Each structure stands twice: as C-alpha cells, then as structure tokens.
C-alpha cells in the first residue's frame, strides 16, 4: 500500500507496419498529454503505418482526462487509417471502458486480414526484436525498446 506508483513514462517500439507504445504509470490529468503527443508524433511520422498498439499492462489509474486522450488518439488514428489496439488491458481499465461504453469502440476496430499478422509480429518479443534491429538505423526511440 505504501509503494509509490511508478513515475509515468512511455517506451516506443517501431516495427515495419506497426508502432507499439508501452505506457507505465498513471494516465491522468497531468500525464495524458504526453501520451497524446507521442502517439500523434508517431502517426504523423509514419504515413504508411497500419497499426498503433498501446501496451497497457503497466498503466495505473486512468482518470477522465486519460480516457479523453485515449479517445483523441482513437480519433486521430482513425483519421490516419491506422488501427488502434489497446493491448494487455488491466481489469481496472477494462472496467472504466465498459462503464463508459467505450470498450466496444476500442476493441471493435474494423479488422482486415492483414491486421492479425501485424498484431502477431508486434506482440511476439522475438519478432519485435528482429524487426526493431532492422529499423534501428531509421531511429530507435525507446531506452529499453526490446523490453
């Protein structure tokens, strides 16, 4: 109970067709803007991007501002024809999405055949490492990108 929540930070992993942003810490009034900036920067930097994965396992509390930012990222991803995935959601986040009626919006993205394969590559650590090494020259972004 006395453990301080980990400081908010983001780790971005880029693969050929996908970007994965790992979120650690509370997503709230003070921090949510950082996530929006990062996601927006990735969306605009990669015109050919197909999938944006937000890795949520490390997320602490999400307040209304945090949810608002997730909705904004969803809207921008949609506009850029990028599929947004909220991966490894903790139960608390699922509950928030379910109460607010947004779970369906975040999970029922129009799926195309290609989506599943990209999802697989992004979520398999080995594949991610391999692809990340290939793209490193174009600019690694996270301090511990390979997790």
């Amino acid at each position, binding site marked *: *109970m*006395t453990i301080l929540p980990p400081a908010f930070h983001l780790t971005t992993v880029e693969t050929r067709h996908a970007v994965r942003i790992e979120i650690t810490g509370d997503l709230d*009034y003070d921090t949510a803007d950082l996530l929006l900036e990062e996601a927006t920067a990735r969306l605009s930097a990669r015109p050919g991007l197909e999938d944006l994965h937000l890795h949520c396992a490390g997320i602490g509390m999400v307040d209304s501002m945090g949810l*608002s930012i997730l909705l904004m990222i969803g809207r921008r991803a949609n506009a850029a024809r990028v599929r947004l995935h909220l991966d490894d959601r903790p139960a608390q986040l699922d509950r928030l999405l379910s109460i*607010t009626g947004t779970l369906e919006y975040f999970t029922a993205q129009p799926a195309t055949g290609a989506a599943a394969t990209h999802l697989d590559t992004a979520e398999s650590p080995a594949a991610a490492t391999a692809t990340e090494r290939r793209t490193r020259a174009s600019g690694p972004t996270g301090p511990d990108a390979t997790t």
Partner: protein
Amino acid sequence: MVSTRAQAGVGAEPDFPWGRAPYPVLVADAAGVLTQRNEAAQVLLPAACPGAELADVVPGWLASAHRSMCLAGLEGGREPEVPLSGGIEGRRFEAHFSLRGDGTVAWWLVDDTDHQLAREALRMEREQTAFLAAASSTLLSSLNLGRCMDVTAQMAADHLADAVLAIAPARGRRLPVVSCLRGGTPTTSQEVVDPDEVPGLGEALRGFPPVPSRWIDASAAPRWMIPEDFGPIGAIVITPLPGHGVPAGALVLLRKEGSAAFTEEEEVFARLFAARAGAAMSAARLYAEQTAITEVLMRDLLPPVLHQISGVDFAGSYRPSADHERIGGDFYDVHPGVAEGEPSLVALGDVCGKGLEAAVLTGKIRNTLHALLPLADDHQRMLTLLNTALLSSHHTRFATLVLASAARKGNEVRVRLTSAGHPHPLIIRANGTVEEADTRGTLVGALPDISARTTTVTLAPGESCILYTDGITDARGGPLGDVLFGEERLKRALAECAGMPAEGIVEHVQMLASQWLGNRDHDDMAVVAISAPRSHHLSAVDGHTRGRYTA
C-alpha cells in the same frame, strides 16, 4: 600686542606663511581681536581688517566658537569630531582651527557649500525612495479599490501637499472622489460633476500627460474640489494615475495660499508616486471586475437546492474538488414535469477535466438538456442530440451522465433510468438490499455514434435511487491513505440507509466520503437521491381531480 598689530598685513611673512593660501585664514588673539587675515579672507570678509573685533566682522557662529575655544583654555582645544560649520555670505563653510605659538588661533575656512548641497540632495532622494517603496508595499498589499484610493490620498497628503483628492474614472455620471487633508483621515464621496469643467482634470482622467501646475489657475478650482475649512488654494497639481492600459484616475494635489508653490521636481515626484498608485488601483479594479464576473458565472453554474416535486423527494449535494472553487466538473439538475404528476427529469453528470474549463462545458450540457426537455420521454434521443451538440473536432472532452425520469404512481415512484457511460445508479430497497440499476450506454461528447439502454425501476415508499459521480467511489483515503472508497463500500454504506429520507442519505454519503478522505485532495463529488416518501395518498375529493399527497 602692539607689535603684533604692527605686523598685520598681507604677505608671506615668517610667522604668517598663508598669505596666498587658497582658503580664507583668520588669526585672532585670546581677547577676540583679529590680528591677521590672508587674501582669500579679505575677499570673503572685506570688513575683517586686522584690529577689528572678531564678533563685529564675522558671523556669530564663528565668533562664539572662538570665544568658547579661548574660555576652554587654548591647551584643551582639540578639533571636534564634527567640524564647526555655518553660513558666510550665503555660502556654507567648515571652520578648522590651529593654535599658534604666540597664543593666537588661526581659523581656516573651507567652503563646503557644494558638499552640503549634495548631501541634502542625497537625503531628499533617500527620503523619496523610502516613501515610494513604502507607498508600493502599502498599496500592493490591498486588492480593494476603495482601500487603494484611501491609501493613495492619505500618503500623498502626508508627503506631497496640504490636501489631496484621488479621483477614479467616472461611473456613469458620478465621479468617485477620496479626499484627505494632511494628517487627516480620507473621506469618500460621489460627485455629480463634469470633470472637464476643471482645467486639466478631464485630460488627466483620460490619461493625457499632466499639465504643468503653473498653467492651472488655482482660483478656478470648483467648490467640490476644496475640502471644508481649507481656505483659499495657493497651488494645484493634477496628475493622471496611469493604469494597465487604461487610466486609473487622477491625483489632485492642493496647497494652501501662502504655502510654497509646487516646484518642477515636486511635480515630477508626484508623477512617480502617481505611477505606483495608478498601477495598484488598476490592479485592484481588474481584480474586482474578475470577482464580479466569476460571481455572475457561478450564480448560474451552482447546483440547485432540491426539494419535493409532485410527490417525489429529491435531494442533492455537491462538493467541488477545491473547496474554494464552488463550481467544477460535476453537476445535477432537476426539471419538474410540465404538469403536476408528469415525470420530473433528473440529470446528474461528470465532465472530463477540472476547474473553469470543466465548469463551462458543464454549463453547456445543462443548457442543452434544458432545451431538450420536451423530448424527456425519450432518453436515447435526448442523449443522441446532446452528443451531437457537444461533439467538437478540437477535443474529446466528454461527459458521462445519468438521466432519470421520476413520477409518482400511487404510493410508488416509477423511475426510468438511462446511463450514458456513467456509474450505475444504486437502488436502496426497504429491506436494506442495494441493487445496481441495469442501464448502460456510451459517454457523450467524444464519439460520433452512441447507444444507451434505458431501464425502469419502481420504488416503494421509503425506497430510494441514488445517483452519484465517481468522485465518491474514487475518493482515495482510509486508514492507510491510499485505498479507494470503492463501489462495495458505498453499497454497504447505502444498505444502512434503508428507509432514510432522501436528504439524510445524501448527507450520510458525503459525510462518509469526507471522513474517508480526511484532508486529502479529491475530485468533485456529487450525490442525488430520488425517494418515494413514506406518505399517505389523499384521495381526490370529487373523484375527478388528481390526488394530493402529504409528505
């Protein structure tokens, strides 16, 4: 003695080597008779010829210094720590002495007029700086316009003039004036006058540079400008009080007839003071205007006081996140039905964000819902229209809310509930069980398409439906300080409220949440209770009109 006089003259004699020294030198004997003087002394004091009585030819201060020096005994004479000084022929001199072997005293006179003037100027400058610093700190410690004007008038009256008027820009046709006599207390009045009738005042109130005092005819001052028992005015200075972009008023300095007129330096200094006073007064005015605007805004945004409507009890309580803000992101409203017995619409919601921005969105939602009241039968339609009204391409600030339409049916109250992304309403049954209302839907204001499912619950007498915002369940506190109050704890607390009146339940929940929080920060917290009162149905007397109820 005689031989000494015989030697008197001007020149480089062996016992008087200072004939051409640049400083005036006078030599006098113990009897106070001048024996020798040099060229410079001759120029300064032409009457001081050798043989004259010192007291007759030099100013009194020097003669008496010589006398007391001789009385004290020549041996005891030492240079005093502060050199003797005094005026001679309109200039100021320091007098230094030296004892000579023959018992006479040589007085050296050093002109320090310029030094004195510089010292005097420095002292004045320091006094003025100290006064300006004191004025700034006194003026800036208040954000009250009236108090700022009082302080301005009083400080100026004590330092700059015999009487002072601080005049604020006209409000309508009235000119707020604070006047103060030197050493007196400021008095406030409203003058219905035209400032342009006074030369220089209209211009000063419009912020034009000040007119030099000598151009203003003191006798032209109107009666209202002259304090009682002041007598005729000798001189007037009118200086604008410059504000932040707009003039903050004018400062009028008055001197009595017979007092010294205002010098140019004094007028410049008055402007320096006016600059500080004007800044403070305009800050105070801005603050007052902001407070007034906030109050106007808040009057409309404050949650309403609830009561019984058409036989249904309503109670609400709201605690904003910062206690001094009073308004925030949570809201509730109860709109009575068009006719007696028609359902009343309750809306309780939570807007994303904090503070004034959230409060503005809250106001928008409350107004939109008010406009949509004719559609209150169809919650989904209301929510869809509200969602469309709130959608913005710039942001995804959303709101979650619950709509509840409550109407009395006999002893019972029927409540139609629709949640738009909001925590479930809770029903307290008479036996102490607490149920979640089965409604869910999408939040409004962020997504183009939303859906919501309505449910209907029936409350028996003494049963209640509780709407709340997540500020209650997300209250972090408890014995260890980091535990959420949570839905389960809320349900247990509500179970103990079975049969309580609506107001009691609302107060109880807010009290428990506050206790849980202790002094920690919290989000906005709002609770509304809809209760079926334990009341008796009075049947209609003639069988045609609608029945009435007692609480």
